[in-house]
């Protein structure tokens, strides 16, 4: 049990997101999360396979044994793994929702806002990708594209991305379709698109845009970020609930609606999952209470399966 406790201390990826965030700035947190995340894997994350051999590289802990080249091992008595063209040229773009609705926490003292959670998750994903020498970029949007960094695999790219994430602040209303269109324009070659949002968007337009990306041959992963209070309508007493972006209000009594509301949210999540999965798009629902490591692990496992 003592070792388990020690593991929990070392593995920042498994800690409560708010607790992790108090340890330092975004870069430090992301590095800590990724270190813990990688140390818990048996093979490299976000690594598919391809029939197009590219080169050998020395074996690293975590690489899958099936990619070991046994002939080279026999000749040189050293471990080498095979790498493929697709992997070495992966271009990943993180598309981050920075709209006003993301700047909300149902329990500010105990949970990150959705935006803070999303930026840290994006930073950790970027670090994982860049450590794999994948070209990684960032697009942040609200009602317009707020920040755009083209995918690069060069040294210093991650710090560039991290600074951009730190400089971001939640803005106005959401217009994800424009940001996704920008991604389409930026990614001429097939690549990976990670879309992080609370999905309080125009559903049909966003679905169309994501499917279009998929149609263009991109692998698309969607992180649907929600606060637990949005899932269960934790507020008590009758109130006028005001939309953060439109300022429109609804008078409701949570006691009367809680069960129906939960059913509605479950249906919305199920609909997103169904629609995205049917289009070959990976969908991950996370809350701001989900440890970053869990979110990363789900995305990695899903991407491996999609190939």
């Amino acid at each position, binding site marked *: 049990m003592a070792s388990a406790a020690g593991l929990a201390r070392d593995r920042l990826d498994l800690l409560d997101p708010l607790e992790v965030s108090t340890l330092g700035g975004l870069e430090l947190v992301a590095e800590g999360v990724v270190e813990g995340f990688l140390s818990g894997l048996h093979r490299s994350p976000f690594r598919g396979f391809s029939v197009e051999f590219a080169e050998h590289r020395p074996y690293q802990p975590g690489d899958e044994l099936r990619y070991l080249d046994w002939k080279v091992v026999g000749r040189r008595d050293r471990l080498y793994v095979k790498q493929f063209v697709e992997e070495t040229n992966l271009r990943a773009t993180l598309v981050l929702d920075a709209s006003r*609705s*993301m700047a*909300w926490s149902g329990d500010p003292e105990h949970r990150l806002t*959705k935006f803070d959670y999303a930026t840290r998750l994006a930073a950790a994903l970027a670090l994982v990708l860049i450590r794999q020498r994948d070209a990684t970029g960032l697009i942040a949007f609200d009602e317009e594209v707020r920040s755009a960094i083209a995918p690069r695999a060069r040294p210093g790219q991650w710090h560039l991305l991290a600074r951009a994430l730190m400089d971001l602040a939640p803005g106005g209303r959401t217009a994800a379709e424009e940001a996704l269109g920008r991604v389409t324009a930026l990614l001429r070659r097939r690549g990976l698109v990670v879309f992080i949002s*609370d999905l*309080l968007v125009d559903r049909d337009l966003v679905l169309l845009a994501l499917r279009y990306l998929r149609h263009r041959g991109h692998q698309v992963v969607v992180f649907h970020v*929600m*606060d637990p209070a*949005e899932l269960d*309508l934790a*507020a008590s*007493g*009758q*109130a*006028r*609930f*005001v*939309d*953060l*972006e*439109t300022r*429109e*209000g*609804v*008078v*409701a009594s949570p*006691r*009367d*609606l*809680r*069960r*129906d*509301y939960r*059913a*509605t*949210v479950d249906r*919305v999540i199920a609909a997103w999952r169904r629609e995205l999965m049917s289009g070959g798009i990976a969908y991950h629902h996370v809350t701001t209470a989900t440890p970053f490591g869990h979110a990363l692990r789900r995305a990695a496992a899903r991407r491996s399966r999609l190939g």
Partner: protein
Amino acid sequence: MVFLQPFALLLLGATLVPPLLHLFQRHRPPDVEFPAVRYLRQTEREAQRTIRLRHLLLLLLRVAAVALVALAAARPVVPGRVGTGHEPTALVLILDHSLSSGAVSGGARVLDDLEARAGETLRAAAPSDALWVIGADGVARRGSRAELLAAVAAAKPEPLRLDLSAAVATAARLVRASGYARGEIHLLSDLQRSAFGSPDSAASGLPLLVYHPAADPPANRGVVSALATPATWLVGTGTVAAAIGGSGGTADARVPLAVSLGGRPGERTLAGVRDVATLAVAAPAAGWAVGEVSLDPDELRADDRRPFAVRVVTPAGVSWDSAEAGPFLTEALGALVRAGQVRLGGAPALRLGPAAAAAGAAAVVLPPRDPVQLGAANRALALAGVPWRFGARIEREDTLAAPRLPEIAGARVLRRYRLEPSAGVAPRSVLARAGGDPWLVRAGRTVVVASRLVPEETTLPLRSGFVPFVGILVDRLARGDEGVLEAAPGDPVALPDNVTALVAGDDVRTVAGARSIEAPVAPGVYFLLAGADTAGALVVAPDPRESDLTRATPADLGALFPGASVAVTASPRAYVAERFRGSGRSELTGWLLAAALLVLAAEALVAAGALERRV
């Protein structure tokens, strides 16, 4: 429908509170920022009908709950019997746990059956009822249901006689004074006919529900009297006159009867109902002795034994002046001497005559033959500390009244002296009266007679009881003996003036200053102490009427309580059906409160969303 508390109907105005609160809650609520308003709006649009329906249901349930509570507070009463509810009732339970309730009838003790019925009725009583229980002592006790249940459970057959007529009259007074519109009297008893007095209309107009055990009363025999004859025995052998009472069985059946004195068995014989048997038993030593006359056990054990007390003495040594005493007294003393009841001279000395009074000595003082000697006789009385003196001579024919001396009662007195007391003389020191004046008085060990015992002054010497009277005079009265008193448990007893305490074993009950007491409840012999001396005995034994278990019939009861609505039953089921009938109306308060609770429970379920339609 009528309301016992109609003013409480004003509470119905409170039914406006839930709708007002409902409207009040429609005021603009506070703003709360929430990102997923679109989901909330979608939910509300889909569940709007359910929510409105639930709000309406909640409103109706809350109004109904308030209305039910208001109606319950008004205590509505409706015709007919609704469930177990009943109109608030003043109920008096008469639980007859007198001595006869200890009889075993039909294989079960009578009292167990009566207690079960009383317990059921008390448990069926509502908090709004006024409850009393009258026990064997005739005292009405009011209390809560729990208190009276405990009292009923603790009841046991008491050696008391409960006058059921008086108990019903007491119950009727309580019901009428209770202020309740409805009242019931329940008489739970073995219904001994002897326990009822004369017809009494006190319960007229009231329901009188009578329950008795179904089994017929058992045949019973009891010792109803045990008296030492004579009242004072000489050392040697004495006799006891014992009377047998009871009911049922074969009238001429004879049962074994035995006597014992101080644990020493005496004569045995057979006797039947109304027989008076004389039983001999040895009295080996002088002093007070306690004995018992007993029957073989039967279905009622409490009357199978009866105690008695007797004083055993040695013959008194008597001296008298024949000339002053006259021929009849001299002859009577001679007969007593010959019978061994009296001896001549020697100690203890007892003198008879006009100047017999002496301090500390036993004496029977008679008026002098020569009126000239009256002054000397009065001086002797004064010197001896006797608070009586001879006064004026009265020549008038009067009849003797002597409640405690049947041997002389009814004799005629032709001439006498007025016996004049000094201040502070207690009435009980007068043993017999003639024409209302004291004729035979006692002060300590001195007895003063107002007439000479000669035919010229009284017819007493010519009566058959003269010799026994002289024997009592010598052996008992002049010894300061108060004799034996008899009383039933709890009966009033007039004590002799000089008695200071009652003693039973180690239990000493001081009675100084009280000339009338209630006899102890426990049967037995209680010695009367006069200072350090034993002056007499009080024999406490059950009332002889308790041995007669003959049951009163419904017709008897109807005649005993004219005007009352008498219902007699021996069936527990019928008893349950009859009780709390009142006017056939029932109070709905309990039902309304129960309905209010159900409505509130439903409200809680609806409010918690348990009845919500799943979307």
